[in-house]
């Protein structure tokens, strides 16, 4: 067998770790390796995975979107609020989506035209949207789903066969994102923009439009994830904005091997990252490890994955990109 350590990309390392953990848990934890549990496992990380795909699109285009959680929480909560206030389901959804897209486009404009660093533009729009939501759009922190919304509720609670809707929606998002990124001109341009924006512009790619588009997509996915959460627990808690969820999303993306310097990666990386997190969380919950310890163990394993990658692919001063933090 031709063994070569450069075969171990970060993606493969993470996948291997996930595989090992999966085997260990299957053998040692009763009830881990069952169809039902694996579906629950997928289900519990499907929202994280969907958000991860949105983030991946932006990261591939050499950006980052810290406003995703705010968009997810506020736009979906507003949808529920509008429904409570007597709007029809259709118009409430349309307005909520518009709200999300508005923030996405605003992110894009600020980053592409005003040239504010993505980190700050999206940080600020996130804080802004959360504040706007809390002060004017929403009555309370937690907005409940009104009774009897029919099919709408099925988005979060329903299932097709043994598969819960969120898992199916995760798969659909994966396929659509994969298609957009690898089979459309827009998607290829995102890679070009992320790899080298200046070169992309010189070759005639309208990078400002592309950047705006990628943030709009991320916001759309954020809204979508928000609706899944809202319908699945019958409420949206906008306080989720204050949690470390955005870091989890970034971790899923970066862990799977999508570099923050842009231009590299695909949907597959997100899936790998999501799987590792899912297996870890599920296994630890079965073992009834406290949430705090779960966090600790999870991050130690993540750290291990990054270190392993660095040991196998050391960066040296010659290849390190300036400003690549």
């Amino acid at each position, binding site marked *: 067998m031709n063994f070569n350590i450069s075969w171990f990309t970060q993606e493969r390392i993470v996948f291997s770790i996930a595989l090992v953990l999966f085997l260990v848990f299957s053998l040692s934890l009763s009830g881990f390796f069952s169809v039902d549990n694996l579906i629950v496992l997928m289900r519990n990380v499907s929202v994280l995975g969907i958000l991860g795909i949105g983030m991946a699109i932006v990261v591939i285009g050499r950006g980052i979107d810290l406003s995703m959680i705010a968009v997810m929480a506020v736009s979906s909560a507003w949808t529920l609020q509008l429904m409570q206030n007597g709007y029809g389901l259709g118009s409430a959804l349309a307005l909520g989506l518009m709200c999300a897209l508005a923030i996405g486009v605003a992110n894009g404009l600020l980053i592409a035209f005003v040239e504010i660093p993505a980190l*700050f533009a999206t940080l600020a729009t*996130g*804080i802004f949207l959360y504040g706007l939501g809390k002060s004017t759009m929403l009555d309370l922190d937690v907005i409940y789903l009104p009774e009897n919304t029919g099919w709408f509720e099925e988005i979060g609670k329903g299932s097709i066969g043994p598969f819960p809707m969120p898992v199916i929606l995760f798969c659909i998002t994966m396929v659509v994102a994969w298609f957009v990124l690898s089979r459309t001109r827009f998607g290829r341009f995102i890679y070009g923009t992320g790899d080298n924006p200046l070169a992309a512009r010189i070759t005639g790619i309208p990078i400002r439009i592309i950047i705006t588009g990628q943030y709009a997509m991320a916001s759309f996915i954020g809204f979508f994830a928000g609706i899944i959460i809202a319908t699945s627990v019958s409420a949206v808690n906008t306080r989720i904005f204050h949690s470390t969820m955005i870091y989890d999303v970034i971790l899923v993306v970066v862990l799977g091997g999508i570099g923050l310097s842009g231009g590299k990666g695909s949907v597959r990386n997100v899936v790998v990252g999501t799987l590792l997190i899912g297996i870890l969380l599920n296994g630890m919950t079965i073992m009834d490890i406290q949430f705090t310890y779960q966090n600790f163990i*999870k991050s130690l394993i993540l750290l291990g994955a990054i270190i392993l990658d660095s040991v196998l692919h050391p960066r040296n001063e010659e290849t390190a990109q300036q400003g690549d*933090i």
Partner: protein
Amino acid sequence: MASANAFTRARYKYFPDHLIGELLSKRWMESAVPTVILVGVFGYLSLNLPHYLSPINLMDLGRLYAEFGLVVLAMGLVMIGGGVDLSIGSMFALCNIAMLSLINMFGWPLWAAIPAVLVFGAALGAVNGFLIGYLKLRAFLTTLVTLIIYRAIVDIGLMNFAVEISGGFLESEAWDFIGDGDIFGIPSGLIAFLILAVIGHVMLSRTRPGWHVMAIGGARRSAHNAGIAVKRTICLTYVVSGVLTALAAVFFAARLGSAGSDVGSGMEVGVLTAAVLGGISLGGGRGSVAKAIMGGAIVLLVTNGMIRMGMEGGSSSLALGIILLFAVGIDVKWLKNRYKIINKVYVSPSYLELPDAPSPEKGSGTPYEVNDRLKTVTAIGLGTIEGPEDVILDHNDNLFAGTRHGDIIKFSGPNFETQETFAHIGGHPLGMAFDPDGNLLTCVGGMGLYGVKPSGEVYKLTDETNRTWYSINDDSRLRLADDLDITPDGQVYFSEATIRYEMHSWPLDSLEGRGNGRIICHDLNTNKTHTVIRDLIFPNGICTSFDGKSILFAETWGCSISRYWIDGPKRGKVEPVIPNLPGYPDNINRSSDGNYWLALVGMRTPTFDLAMTMPAFRRKMARRVAPDEWLFPNINSGCVIKFNEAGEILDVLWDLGGENHPMITSMREHKGHLYLGGISNNRVGRYKLENADPDWVGIDSYWGKKS
């Protein structure tokens, strides 16, 4: 019309246009936007909040600021080194509970607990530093993970020991002082912060480790190639960041004694915002302690102010988001466009009205009538020398000329065919003179006043003069020392043509027509330097009069020769010698018959003279037209003039075709010949003088005949 002229003249005399460009090009102007924001926020809050300026409130603010500021300093340091430390908030929380548990759970005394916590902070930072510096992990991702790890440790600690950790207050005066004390109304924490800020500033801007950090942040690869220990330095920035954060946590613990679970959570966002708002760039290489201080102050005042104004949580987030966007947006645009603005406004023409130029045309009857006498000039070193602005000869008939490559070339032999590099200086040597000991003193463009010993050894005389307190551009540095001469008592008078432009862009000064130049005196006996005359319009050639009691100097764009008395009854006075030349005067040197030679580098044109009275036109030109198309004074054809002490023109030498000697910036008489230099020539010219003393050597007229 006359009143309109008077108005224009007054406007350009009293309104300091040039200051705008100079202000903008200051490095601290990078912080202009943050400063304005800070002042605005503080002003708004003091007007809108009752008792905001009361000592108690300012003290409370100071306490809060000390903690926050320390953490911003920590983050700033890491960012300047090209990294980022997101784990800072978790480290803060961890150090906080470490401090509380040491004193509350384990009963350690303060003198042991505080250093222990600082060491603990250093260790936490060292984990980051080791991973990022030595293992070369990515800073963003790594500190993101350590953020979660440290936070998890905090949570685990609190879950198990919350009650013990936070149980009871330590009754200790020292502890109360740290948390709640002050010296002369300055809170204890703020004192520590200020001391550390000063140390940090000195370290970062004046010491080797600080420069290393800046270098690594600016260009990691170059720093590595330059031999800087990149790994160790990066690691150390994180260690220091850990210590500063731990110190902030100690003050926090002393102030509140709270082991709350959300201490420090989300702190990284505020701190990062503060650092960037202050002007520390993400990615490294740009930043300072002052920027960190300012950014920290803005963020603290804004967030605290919104709580104080009783703003509802949502509205304050809303406002914070908008402020953040505006501040960063304006800052980004400002940094990006500042240089464009400088380029547009730095050239600031002023009003200069010259009398009508005497005509040099044939038959005009003026002493300047053209002739073709320089046609017989022969070339020395043709094509082998570039830019001999000045030439000088010694007793042994060696000819010295500076070049644009930064050398002084020595020509020797009967026909100067032997050529060797006499000295390498590094900058373009301009005017030259021999001192009594035979050292060759020279003004070096961009460097200052230097000397070359007969052995060829180069030494510095001065590169600075006294600073004018009201100047914006640092005028203590010599930018464009031009020509010099030495008085019998060992004073070197030399001209600095302009203090607003560098060596390579001196022609731009011609567009301004303002007195940007000065004459400086360097005393060879005491080695002291001071500025003698300011606000001269491109002072250029300098020559000590034969009696040694005055110096003659030329103002190039002012088209005049003046005399400055250094001795005698008129000492310190300036009087005109030739008030109105037909061209732009350059170097002045003595002639063998007791008069002076003067080079005119170019001739005036009515167009440019007119343009000098139209500053608005020239400004528009500088802003809108490409530099290649600008209207410049003619510096292509000139002549050599001989004049006497009274300023009367005695002789004129022209080269009409400009073939033998295209440009003349200086001339030196030596043993019956005149040697000509030109700053853009590729030769030194040699012209045989009729009726000149064939044994006269220039140095002798200064220091007497050498035996």
